[in-house]
């Protein structure tokens, strides 16, 4: 029974992190799936959200900026707004670029954010991180505190999912798809491509910041190591590709599935003898890369392929799906 209660608690934590990754993946899906923006700087926006929310809610500390003790609602919104402003500035500079240039530029920008977090010690406590971040519902008894936090995460995922589904089917979503598929045609149709792209980029980055904020409160601690690219950028990309880009359900599915694989594969590894267990840790990373390759080559659409938004009205004669 104790064992089952343990499994139950582990499932809660698995689902919580899975849900946080689902928010990240949905954010990336707006950018990559719907708008075609190759953002490899997820970790940067994640970090902004995490630190803004952490600093706004913690008690005063000699180690870092803080002591504002704002309510969570305020800090979450602030995290998203700060991220939106920075995303706007980054977008102004980078969105005109070809996709793989954008990849290089965003990965660079994320690294600069990390350098700032490490060096501006007065605000962030530098590499030592912000500790004792309050966690929503933490005063409730076990396991209700964890269940409530999970409910918050799942509810957020659900609301974002619904909003994105509506947006995807709306005229806005259709313009986005058009831009991704054929930018010139979209321009010719009189759409302000730059503006739509910017919107997609900003919305995506806001979701990434929200995921970062949730992570900071969930861990009750945040430091620059928590924003390293392997698990905050690359893993999210693998999740989206595996789940199916341009499909919101796919993004959520991919996030939960890959996080389960990532986290649970270690349970098997820890059953091995030590020397092997240490090395197996690297095989896990190898497998993540390999899964990505297999999906890219064999199932490029992921588990769930894209569902095209169709206008409700009858199609214009002569209109055909752009490929």
């Amino acid at each position: 029974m104790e064992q089952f209660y343990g499994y139950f608690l582990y499932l809660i934590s698995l689902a919580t992190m899975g849900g946080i990754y689902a928010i990240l993946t949905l954010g990336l899906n707006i950018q990559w799936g719907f708008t075609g923006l190759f953002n490899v700087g997820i970790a940067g926006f994640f970090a902004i959200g995490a630190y803004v929310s952490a600093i706004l809610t913690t008690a005063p500390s000699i180690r870092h900026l803080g002591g504002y003790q704002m309510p969570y609602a305020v800090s979450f919104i602030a995290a998203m707004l700060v991220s939106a402003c920075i995303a706007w500035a980054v977008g102004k500079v980078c969105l005109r670029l070809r996709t793989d240039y954008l990849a290089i530029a965003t990965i660079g920008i994320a690294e600069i954010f990390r350098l700032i977090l490490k060096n501006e010690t007065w605000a962030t406590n530098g590499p030592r991180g912000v500790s004792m971040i309050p966690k929503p519902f933490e005063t409730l008894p076990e396991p209700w505190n964890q269940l409530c936090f999970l409910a918050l995460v799942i509810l957020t995922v659900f609301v974002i999912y619904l909003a994105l589904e509506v947006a995807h089917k709306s005229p806005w979503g259709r313009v986005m798809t058009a831009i991704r598929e054929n930018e010139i045609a979209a321009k010719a149709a009189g759409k302000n491509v730059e503006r739509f792209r910017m919107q997609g980029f900003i919305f995506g980055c806001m979701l990434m910041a929200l995921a970062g904020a949730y992570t900071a409160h969930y861990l009750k601690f945040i430091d620059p190591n928590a924003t390293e690219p392997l698990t905050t950028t690359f893993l999210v990309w693998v999740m989206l590709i595996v789940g199916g880009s341009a499909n919101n359900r796919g993004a959520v599915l991919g996030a939960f599935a890959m996080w389960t694989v990532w986290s649970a594969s270690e349970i098997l590894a820890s059953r091995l003898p030590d020397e092997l267990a240490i090395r197996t840790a690297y095989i896990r990373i190898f497998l993540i890369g390999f899964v990505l390759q297999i999906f890219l080559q064999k199932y490029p659409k992921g588990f769930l392929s894209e569902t095209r938004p169709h206008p409700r009205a009858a199609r214009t004669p002569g209109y055909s799906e752009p490929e």
Partner: protein
Amino acid sequence: MKYLAKFSLAAAFSLASMTASAADIKVGSVAGVTGPIAELVAPILAGRNLAAEHVNAQGGLLQGDTMKMVVADSACDPKAGVDAGGKVVNIEQVVAIVGASCSGATNGMVQSVTIPAGVVSVSDSATAPSITDLKDNDLVYRVAPSDSYQGRALASHVLASGIKKVAVTYATDDYNAGLAEVFAREFKNMGGTVTANQAHEPKKASYRGELATLAKGGPEALALFAYYGSSGITIIRNSIENGLFGKFYAADGMFDKSVIEQIGADVLRGNIDISQSSSDYDDVSYKLFAAAISAKGVNPKAPYAAHGYDATFLMALAIEKAGSADRGKIAAALRSVSKGPGEVIRPGEWAKAKKLISEGKDVNYEGATGIVDFDENGDVSGIYGINTIGADGNWQTKLLK
């Protein structure tokens, strides 16, 4: 749910004690197997496993149960630390945890998982002062002394060796940045002069420019806070090759044989002093540990290997003292086995400890790293050694008094 859980635990336990057959008692062994300090982890795990081996070879825990260390990777990342902690606590149902390694991973793991779950943890290498402040319900311990102590110890050693002006450089990671801050503050308070205090980004190919700037203002030595692999060796090499600094003071992130192998013993002899949260190498406790781990082919002076041993051995004593594999009782027993009153137990003396505890006597563990008495914050004061290069081209340690 919680009551149900407690009830079922009690039921399960009484069942187990009725049958009294040898079983596994799992203890989590959380360490940064991958990630930025991966190269330091193998000896630490060897230290932990050696302690478990000693326990199992000399009668095991409680009714002859096997102490089983369950490894989980905290990757030096709080996200991974929380995930790893959750897995060992909930899936593996460990009774207690040794780890995590890095301060960040430890901070996340204890706040988010082990304190709420009521699981006691002893870290063997988390040194961040912020861990002292945690509201931890007496569940978070560490045998690695807080950086505040080491920074002060090194500062007074530098002054004592006649150096009044130093330049300080530190890698921008949690461990070294914190240590450098304490060192610079203490050094000034003790009357020394810090001519420059400069961060550097680890893992760059060259630090010649940074060093040239640091060398200005007439410092007599460089106080170097870095991991040997990510920037420390490069900095020493660049300094010596360019004649910028000849004398170095460093902390235990630099303590590794590869520093000598890569730079050369003759160049460094007399020119480098590395403080280390260490052991009294003349102490009988340390010698017992050193002999045992050397037999495994592991360097007993590897950073935090002895701490890994002590953390694990203390945990075993606490389990024995608690008389059951009950998380709450283990937590309650941990502090009492770490300090007096009681008969002194040294590394490897499990059978003796087991006998004493079964007779209802108190024990006091004096480990490979020192007396390891937990204070009210779950910290130890620790002792420090200064490593220099001896005539044989190996590190030689002198205890700092």
